[in-house]
């Protein structure tokens, strides 16, 4: 199911789908689609070795949390293919990118478009902040900073078993403010965990606004190298650069690709909202209509038909 469409085409599809969904639902994680569309398209469409989905294209409703009394519990990992030694695993560390990740599952044929209609609906597994049981999610990552550590543990275990599948963690740059991220890198380097790689959306944004205004993190590439990772910096919207970065040798070390992105890429209208881009809501119906026309034009589609509010 790989490469039916070009990765560029998948990325465009992600932006359009997230835009459409956000217009219809009066807001959403739009800027994450702008910054990360190429990255998630790259991961699902070409970079990762994922098997066919093992879970239904239309997600099942929420079926309870893990407990001794819930033996049928499954995570959303099945949308990324079977948990077999030869296949890669993917963690979406910033779980608030879920809408973008779900759009990617749809664009790569792993989930039906109907799945997105269940987004953030009561009783649905397609949750706003991706949970372990949400499509494409393999572990809980909603608390930022735990993803890379979990990935390192899984990668260590898989390497010990001789599995050929790699572990990839999609990260966001806000996570570097958490000490645990650095603990994870030093541990992965110390133990030579080189079947682990991360693609980080470096959009310089966090919930409160531009990262420099919230907490400066300085030169994270140098920091990652100092902590023991191989680190490559690229333009997040340059797929050839991304392909090349993935080929960077990193024997005995984890690879971290810093994808420097624009939080308004493909939706220039959002620049008016800078630097408050974490979750875009419409201030008025007029603004919503104006945004609808402007962004639809940039994305090459007709404005979204909106229900009256």
């Amino acid at each position, binding site marked *: 199911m790989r490469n039916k469409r070009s990765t560029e085409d998948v990325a465009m599809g992600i932006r359009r789908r997230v835009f459409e969904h956000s217009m219809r639902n009066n807001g959403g994680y739009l800027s994450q689609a702008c910054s990360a569309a190429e990255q998630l398209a790259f991961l699902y469409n070409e970079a990762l070795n994922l098997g066919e989905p093992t879970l239904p294209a239309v997600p099942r409703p929420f079926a309870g*949390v*893990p*407990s*001794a009394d819930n033996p049928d519990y499954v*995570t959303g990992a099945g949308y990324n293919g079977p948990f077999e030694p030869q296949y890669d695993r993917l963690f979406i560390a910033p779980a608030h990118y879920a809408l973008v990740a779900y759009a990617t599952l749809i664009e790569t044929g792993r989930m039906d478009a109907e799945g997105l209609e269940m987004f953030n609906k009561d009783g649905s597994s397609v949750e706003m902040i991706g949970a*372990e049981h949400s499509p494409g999610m*393999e*572990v*809980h*990552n*909603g*608390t930022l*900073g*735990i993803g890379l*550590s*979990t*990935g*390192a*543990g*899984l*990668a*260590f*275990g*898989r390497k*010990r*078993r001789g599995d050929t599948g790699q572990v990839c963690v999609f990260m966001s740059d806000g996570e570097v403010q958490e*000490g*645990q991220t650095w*603990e*994870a890198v*030093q*541990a992965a380097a*110390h*133990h030579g965990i080189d079947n682990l790689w991360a693609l980080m959306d470096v959009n310089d944004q966090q919930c409160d606004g531009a990262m420099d205004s919230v907490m400066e993190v300085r030169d994270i590439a140098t920091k990652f190298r100092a902590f023991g990772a191989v680190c490559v910096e690229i333009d997040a919207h340059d797929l050839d650069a991304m392909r090349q970065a993935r080929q960077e040798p990193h024997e005995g070390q984890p690879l971290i690709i810093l994808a420097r992105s624009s939080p308004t890429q493909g939706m220039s209208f959002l620049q008016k909202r800078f630097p408050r881009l974490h979750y875009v809501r419409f201030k008025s119906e007029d603004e919503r209509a104006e945004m609808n026309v402007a962004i639809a034009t940039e994305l090459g589609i007709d404005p979204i038909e909106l229900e009256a509010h």
Partner: protein
Amino acid sequence: MVEMVNRPYASAFEAYAVKHPDVLCLSADLTSSCEIDGFRDRHPDQFLSLGMAEQNMMSFAGGLGLAGYRPFLHSFGVFLYRRPYDQLMASVAYPRRKVRLMGFLPGITTPGGMTHQAIEDVAVMRSIPNMSILETGDATEVESICEAADSIDGPVYCRVLRGSVPRLFDSPIKVGEMRELSAGADVLVVTSGIATEEALRARDALSKAGVSIRHLHIHTIKPFNEQALLDHIGSVSKGVVVLENHVITGGVGSLVAEIMADNGVGKPLVRLGLNDTYAHGGSRGYLMKHYGLDAGALVRGIERIIGASTGIDEEALASARVEAVHSAVKAEAL
């Protein structure tokens, strides 16, 4: 004279782990302090040093669990839940990873003061869904803790004794059960961990004073056999005293209180332990006396239940010590 066993965890863990290749030994810079230095030296391939970075260790262990391993995390109890609590929740407890948290120096068994004393760990762990809790009270329980913990389908937190540990029992931990150490009819005494040895110190003196004690030792705090406890409470006439090496909120005393309240048991209950206070650094004997966790405090608690003085003083308890503990081995047969 009671048998003292030196570093029972060290040999027990090694014996267990070498037979189970999916068991991994994780340490956070407290390797010799947790008696796994010999294991590290002899089985380096099964040992992972994760440094002073407990948050990473906890999530890393979750990842190892996802890969099918059963990591045993070794540190002081406090460092397994206070700093990495968020990671414990999200990476271990929620997904029910088979992570075995071996928490050393429970309660006031360390002179390290507040930062080292896990005084509310049981309360924290009891409130975490999917979590199981075991506590060791003697060398035999320490020797059997690895197998008991590893039998649990999900995460488990264990309060582990280290160093020189008395042997009070001759049978291993059976998860979900409790030990009946005496079957008296007046007062039910419920103890766990090192509090059990204290209760045994008071045993002969209480007997001489004519108080009939029914004594339970709790090694499995969660899951808990509620009906067994209710049956024991039903077998005594006066009431219940709980003594634990923990704050009295949220621990075994609270567990007993909840069960009594849930079932409408109208008998008096006295909970003994740290009473809404931190402890400070000092020897175990000093701290137990100072904070009312010792045999003397238990006797005073029993007197509150029976509404009379037993006439037992410190001297009687001190002289009772060795023989009383020794007789606990026989009490096992009850």
